């Protein structure tokens, strides 16, 4: 067991520490609430000479990801951090980063999207990026934000992946709340993350390369996009492999999903991020009353771990899918769409209800979660219908 430092830390601090230990050659970032503490903390590391990172204080998030793309194409290890409107401003560059197959690690402090403007936690920002070709992970805790961030470098820079990775944590709940956390020694972490070996970098000494080509003629665009689909699909086993490697070092488990009491559960709630703890607490209470409740928390959201989700849900009588954002105009919220699509592969149909909860940082209370579990029992009994509902709007 390596030496560890135990400290009281926020999620933002844990992301900063993970970035310091992975020590990117370039960080280009722009401040936005509630990510700001990450870039502030990193500025101290730079000012104190603790890292060799070239720290680029850009004039917008569009430029931060643009500069990261240039730096990654040049061959550097690259990271950034953002949130909400910043992530939205990066939309164009999100697709370019993945389309150019450039490893970049980006922390996102999950926050509501305007309008109306709201600085608090939900998943409206990251869900807008869910199909942009990035590997996406959701942390439940500050500790997991640290672990996910470190694992992200190994996924992104893996020779068979070469994709950007988003490591996300919920705004304020995880970014700002202080928890007991553990940081492993720098040497241990550096040995784990290793160094990036770039493929065809711009700065390579002798061989000129062209990046960001024009692919409008013939079939070339189509081929590149097929390769991108293959790459993110191929990342699935690699995520587990490098995640397990870290789990063996830090002695904390890693999996695509965190299935709590799902094996024999009749009623399961699927949830992402910081709300999982409250849902587990309710499930525990219900178990004490003889109700077989379970919780499935999805940690790796893209590529979507459909097989692992199915394995956990296959014996349930009813499933509640929690979504901290809506997909307006679609039948369900983003997680609702993904989980229901996965469930289609089961021979027997499991009824679901899709709960939109906690938008703009609205509290998700124990009582509202109990209400949802109650509804799942009614759903299984056939006394209410499937569908989408907003949970806890006063």
């Amino acid at each position: 067991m390596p030496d560890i430092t135990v400290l009281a830390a926020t999620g933002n601090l844990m992301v900063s520490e993970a970035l310091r230990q992975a020590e990117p050659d370039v960080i280009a970032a722009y401040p936005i609430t509630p990510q700001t503490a990450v870039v502030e903390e990193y500025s101290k590391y730079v000012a104190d000479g603790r890292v060799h990172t070239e720290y680029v204080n850009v004039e917008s998030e569009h430029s931060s990801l643009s500069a990261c793309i240039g730096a990654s194409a040049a061959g550097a290890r690259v990271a950034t951090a953002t949130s909400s409107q910043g992530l939205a401003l990066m939309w164009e560059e999100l697709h370019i980063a993945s389309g150019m197959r450039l490893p970049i690690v980006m922390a996102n402090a999950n926050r509501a999207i305007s309008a109306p403007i709201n600085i608090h936690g939900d998943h409206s920002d990251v869900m807008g990026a869910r199909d942009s070709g990035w590997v996406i992970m959701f942390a439940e805790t500050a500790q997991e934000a640290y672990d996910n961030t470190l694992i992200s470098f190994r996924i992104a820079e893996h020779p068979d992946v070469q994709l950007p990775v988003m490591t996300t944590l919920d705004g304020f709940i995880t970014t700002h709340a202080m928890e007991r956390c553990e940081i492993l020694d720098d040497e241990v972490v550096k040995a784990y993350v290793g160094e990036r070996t770039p493929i065809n970098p711009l700065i390579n000494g002798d061989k000129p390369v062209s990046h960001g080509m024009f692919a409008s003629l013939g079939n070339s665009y189509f081929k590149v996009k097929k390769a991108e689909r293959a790459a993110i699909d191929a990342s699935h086993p690699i995520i587990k492999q490098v995640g397990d490697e870290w789990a063996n070092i830090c002695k904390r488990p890693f999996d695509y999903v965190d299935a709590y009491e799902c094996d024999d559960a009749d009623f399961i709630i699927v949830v992402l991020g910081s709300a999982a703890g409250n849902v587990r607490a309710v499930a525990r209470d219900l178990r004490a009353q003889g109700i077989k409740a379970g919780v499935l928390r999805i940690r790796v959201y893209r590529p979507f771990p459909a097989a692992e989700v199915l394995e956990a849900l296959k014996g349930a009588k009813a499933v509640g899918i929690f979504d901290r954002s809506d997909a307006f105009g679609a039948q369900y919220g983003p997680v609702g769409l993904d989980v229901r699509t996965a469930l289609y592969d089961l021979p027997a149909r499991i009824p679901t209800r899709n709960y939109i909860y906690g938008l703009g940082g609205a509290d998700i209370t124990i009582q509202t979660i109990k209400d949802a579990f109650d509804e799942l029992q009614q759903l299984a009994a056939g006394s209410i219908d499937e569908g989408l509902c907003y949970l806890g709007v006063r």
Partner: protein
Amino acid sequence: MASIKELSLQPERLVGGHRLCGGCGASIAVRQVLLGARDTEVVVGCATGCLEVSTTALPYTSWDTSFIHNAFENAAATITGVEAAYKGLKAAGKIAKDKEIKFVAFGGDGGTYDIGFQALSGALERGHDFVYVCYDNGAYMNTGIQRSSATPIHAWATTSEVGKVIPGKPQKRKDLTSIVAAHHIPYVAQASVGNWKDLVDKAEKAFAADGPAFLNVLAPCPRGWRYESAQTVEIARMAFRSKFWPLFEVANGVWTMKEVKEKELIPVVDFLKVQGRFKHLFKPEAAPLLEEIQKDVDEYYAYIQRMCAASAQ
């Protein structure tokens, strides 16, 4: 300053076989600017536009030097990311301390004056060691001659049409070179593909500058300006000779201008009348518009002269 013989021996970094139009000013600008880097390794960044689409059609590239295109509005942000990587990799000991690489970004006037303006300003303020080159052909030529903030007043463009009540673009062009000079970076210059010696000389100074440098290079477009492709260099020279496009530089805050000699001077109408985009100005009723353009040109030239006099050492 290298002789033309020496320059002719320099390696070409933008090689033949690209798909730019005959007479395109952009490729002339790029080749002359890159001569200014001499033998030093160069990484080129490029905004979306004619230059990019015509030189990088997958699976071919016309660039015999490392090249990156990202998007339209972020050539400055992208190339400064590359430059930051160079510094970061040096600090990490992953590339040799004495390894010298130059970084240059090319963007058209749409990608520089308009949509890329914020990224350019940010990159200049941050002080990266790079050269930004705007090849200014005065409109969005790649998408089909739409007006930009570089389009001259009263010029025809497909989004500033000449009609019964409006005679082309109503607004004056943005003075981007002066705006860049207000960033007080080491080197800023306005040049033209019609004056190769002046351009290569300025490119050499730009690459040699310690910090950001900016070149605004007039690069006529036969399609957009409506003239025969053999006339590009001649028309660019007329832009200078008519004072429409003053050739000046701001080196560490000192403004100097290549004055138009009396025997070379031509009225601005001579420059305008050879271009189809101004043909509506040569109807009798448009005479006041021509007078207005001449007045604007003279005023701008006088402004540059005043800046030169005020900053003279």
